[in-house]
Structures are given as structure tokens and as C-alpha cells.
């Protein structure tokens, strides 16, 4: 069978048994409806910390909906109903006592289209600190620099940190948005097709960044680009029509999928 090229990471086998990773997100029988449309059907997934989990699947398969459920961003859509449980570090995110503000502080999100605020580069990063009541100028300055360094964009913007963020290129804007999340030192980064609006060079930079960030953060990334999933992720979940068809090590998904539909999708027979 002709599967997409997949570079096996050299440290892959040696890494696997060494550490017992805890779960960040455990999804149990999760369903979601937009009005009458059943968008997520009985999702069961267990995502580990400090791994990159990729979610792939054709348009309309529910992958974006699912990642937006993980930080309850779907709440913004009118007429959304959910059932089942999604546990973040053992706490049900649908529980009323778990405020969405806390969840979204611990879980950062990077969106499909770079969405910096119409403010300066500095204020974009400081925004998260300010809304959480941090006023100390020294802390804010240090955090802004640290976050921009972590997002590998510091050298490009350090001389124009007080200029409007809209002056940056698309790829720089997206890394700025990643830095904006990092400023709050989150536990998890959710990325909803973060490179779909970027050119190939910017895409590569963001992918390199994701590989670096994996050391400290758990990353869940939705992508329509299968090569990207195979390049950067440890685990891959394949969504189709609102269901999880297969969830396994990325290597297995791309080289020895258990389900025919997964194989058809990754070999480009549909989607």
C-alpha cells in the first residue's frame, strides 16, 4: 500500500516507554449538537501531557468543533447543546463550578486566522496579564520579553515593540498570537489550523516552534494538512462525520492504520 512519506523520528522508540505521561484531557462519550445538527458523536479520547496531539479529517468532520469544545469556545455559538464529560486534569469542564475563565487561562488557544488586537505588539502580549489584574510594570515587561523569546519572534520585533501589531506579516502575527498565549504560562495550547492562512516559510517556522514548545506544553492541533500532522505530532486522531474513526500513535496512523477509512483519507482517496 502506498502511504504518505513519513520520517520516523529517531528518538521515537527510545522515548516511548521511558516516561509515564499523565492525561491532560480525557473525553468520555461527548456529544455536541448545533441546534438539530449532531456535530460530535460519542467522542472518547485520552490526551497526554507534553505531547503533540494532531486532529485530522476532512472539512466538516467536527475537528474544529471538538478543539473549540476543549476550552468551551463553542459556548459563543448560539443553540449549542452538549452531553458527556470532558475532563481537564480530572475536572469536568462542563461543571458549573469550573469557570470558563479559569479553563481558558490554563488552556491557551491559537486560531485559524492570526487575530492580534489592534494595539501595539507590547500591549497584545500584556493584554492577558492586564485582564488578570497584573499591574506591576516590571513583571509585565519581563513577561512580554520572555513570551516573545519563547515564540521565537523577539529578534524580529524587539526594535518596534510599541508599533501596531497589524504592521507585522501574517506569519509574525501568528507567532505573536502564540506568544500572547504563552504570557499566561498555560498548561495546554490548543491550535485550530494555525498555519492554514500562512505561506510555506511561515508555516515551517510555526512548526519548528511547536516542536520546541512541546518540551513544556501539551499541544493539541487541528490541521487539514496531513504532512504537517505526520511531521509534528506524537498522536493523531482521525475524525470523520463527527466521530473518531481512529486514534493512535502518529506513526501507526500513517503507516499501519487499523481502519480502511483512515487509510483512504491519508492516501488522498477522499477529503
Amino acid at each position: 500500500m502506498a502511504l504518505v512519506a513519513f520520517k520516523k523520528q529517531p528518538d521515537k522508540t527510545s522515548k516511548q516507554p521511558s516516561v509515564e505521561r499523565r492525561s491532560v484531557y480525557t473525553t468520555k462519550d461527548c456529544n455536541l449538537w448545533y441546534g438539530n445538527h449532531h456535530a460530535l458523536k460519542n467522542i472518547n479520547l485520552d490526551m497526554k501531557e507534553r505531547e503533540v496531539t494532531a486532529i485530522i479529517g476532512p472539512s466538516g468532520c467536527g475537528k474544529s468543533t471538538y478543539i473549540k469544545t476543549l476550552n468551551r469556545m463553542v459556548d459563543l455559538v448560539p443553540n449549542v447543546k452538549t452531553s458527556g464529560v470532558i475532563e481537564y486534569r480530572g475536572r469536568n469542564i462542563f461543571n458549573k463550578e469550573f469557570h470558563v475563565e479559569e479553563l481558558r487561562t490554563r488552556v491557551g488557544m491559537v486560531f485559524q486566522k492570526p487575530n492580534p488586537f489592534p494595539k501595539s505588539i507590547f500591549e497584545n502580549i500584556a493584554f492577558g496579564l492586564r485582564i488578570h489584574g497584573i499591574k506591576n510594570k516590571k513583571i509585565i515587561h519581563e513577561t512580554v520579553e520572555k513570551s516573545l523569546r519563547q515564540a521565537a519572534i523577539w529578534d524580529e520585533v524587539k526594535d518596534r515593540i510599541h508599533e501596531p501589531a497589524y504592521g507585522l506579516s501574517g506569519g509574525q502575527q501568528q507567532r505573536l498570537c502564540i506568544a500572547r498565549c504563552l504570557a499566561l504560562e498555560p498548561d495546554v495550547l490548543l491550535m485550530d489550523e494555525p498555519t492554514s492562512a500562512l505561506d510555506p516559510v511561515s508555516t515551517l517556522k510555526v512548526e519548528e516552534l511547536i516542536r520546541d514548545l512541546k518540551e513544556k506544553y501539551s499541544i493539541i492541533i487541528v490541521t487539514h494538512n496531513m504532512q504537517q500532522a505526520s511531521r509534528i505530532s506524537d498522536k493523531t486522531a482521525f475524525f470523520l462525520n463527527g466521530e473518531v474513526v481512529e486514534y493512535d500513535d502518529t506513526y501507526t496512523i500513517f503507516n499501519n492504520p487499523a481502519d480502511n477509512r483512515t487509510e483512504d483519507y491519508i492516501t488522498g482517496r477522499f477529503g
Partner: protein
Amino acid sequence: MENAQKSIRTDEMIKKIPVRLLKNKLYKGLFFFAAVFTFVLLVVLLARIFSQGAAHLSWDFLQNFASRRPEQAGIKAAVIGTLWMMAVVVPVSLLLGVGTAIYLEEYAKQNRITRLIQMNISNLAGVPSVVFGLLGLTIFVRVLFLGNSVLAAGLTMSLLILPVIIVASQEAVRAVPKELREASYGLGATKWQTILRVVLPSALAGILTGSILAFSRAIGETAPLVVIGIPAFVAFLPKSVFDPFTALPMQIYNWTSRPQEEFHFLAAAGIIVLLVILILMNSVAVWIRNRYEKKY
């Protein structure tokens, strides 16, 4: 030979081009005429007002109170009175208008009741100003015993321009990209923080532009003032919002309705003062729009 195989004939299409070009010119001429017509009317109106009123414009005219003798009559009470009224209108209508717009856009559920309220607000913008005058007369003058005071007139005018401010603010709030809201919520911001730090700053230019145009309307409106019984002949300045006062349009209206021709010239001079104030306000609106829109 080749043409015979084609279902459309290029040479015939080309023959029609002159006719199409003629039509093209015709419509251009039509629209040009419409624009010239409007412009000429405006020039005639301004020329008439300036030829009658310019001679009466003087420092004394701005400094004097109303008088039975035209040569001593001035517009001080009306100008100051209008400023007092606007000191009530601006904060009241902005707070209520922007507040309502934010509630409708950000908080209200999109159901039948919201749509009904929305439709009513849009319709209120078209209700004649006399009707708002009657409303003001009933509520502020009669029920709340505010009489013909600055407060009564200011509140009535606020009601009059409220629908316009609400609709303009709603449009400005709606125009803020949803991606910006998502970015804010995604960082753990509450709804109020998102509104205060993301939505309002982005919508500010639109809100202020719409509001200043509405304020201009409040300055020029006469009918509600007549209905709630604002006097035209006032020889003192209000000391608080509970004092009686007069406003520019009332003064102009009073002068035009007098038999002596001298007063008609004074009315023209008053109109010039009113126009200058309106042009200044509209310029501020344009300046705000240019200044804040450049940022994005």
C-alpha cells in the same frame, strides 16, 4: 465559414457598442445633473441667509440678550441655553444609547422579543419630533414637574436622538470582528473585560461619528421645544439645569414669526451662528473617524 459555426456573432456585438457607450454617457449626465441641482439649491439657501444675516453678525449680537428693539437684540441667551441643553443631552443619550446597543448586541438572546425591541427602536428613529415633544410634555413637564427647564428639554431631546445613537452604536459594535472577541475570551477575559478592552475601543470611532451627527440634530430641532413650552424671549442665563432657558432654534423661530423685517435679518444671523456650530460638530465627527480608522 468560421462564423457559421459560432452560436454568437462577434461583428454584431461590436456594432452595438456605440449604443451602449451612449447609454453610459447618458447616465453619467443624469447623475451629474442631480448632484449639481442639490449643490445649487444649497448655495442659493446659504447665499440668501448670508446676504440677509451677515451684516447683523457682530460681537454685540453674540453678547446681547433678546430685545424688543431689533438693533439691541442679541443671541447670548440662546447660545448659552443651547450649550446648557447639550450638557444634559450628551451624557444622557450616550449612556443610555451605548448601553442599550451593548445590551442588544452582546447580551440579549436572539429571540422574538429582542427582534421586536430592535424593530421598535428602528421605527422610533422615524417618529416625528413633535411626538417626542408631546412625550416630554407629558412625562418631564407634567408628571415630574420639571417645567420648561433645561433638564426637561435636555431629556426630551435625548429621547429624540436615542434611537439614532442606538442604531449607530449597534452597527459599530457589530462591525468589530468576531476574531477579536475570540482572542480576548480565549485568554480568559470575562464578557465585561472583552467589551471594555476590545469591543468598545474598536467601535469607538463609529459610535462617536453617529452620536455627533445625532447631537447636531438635537441642536437644530425646534418642534419638541415648542411643544414643551420653551420660551423664546429670555433675558437671563440659566444657573442650573432646573432653570428655564431658551435655545437657538427657538430664538430663530421667534424672530422669523415677527412682522418687522429687521427681525428676519436677525433670524438669518442666528441661522449663521447655528450653522457654524453644526459645521464645527460635523468636522469633529470627520476628524474622529479619520483619526481612529487609520489605526487598523
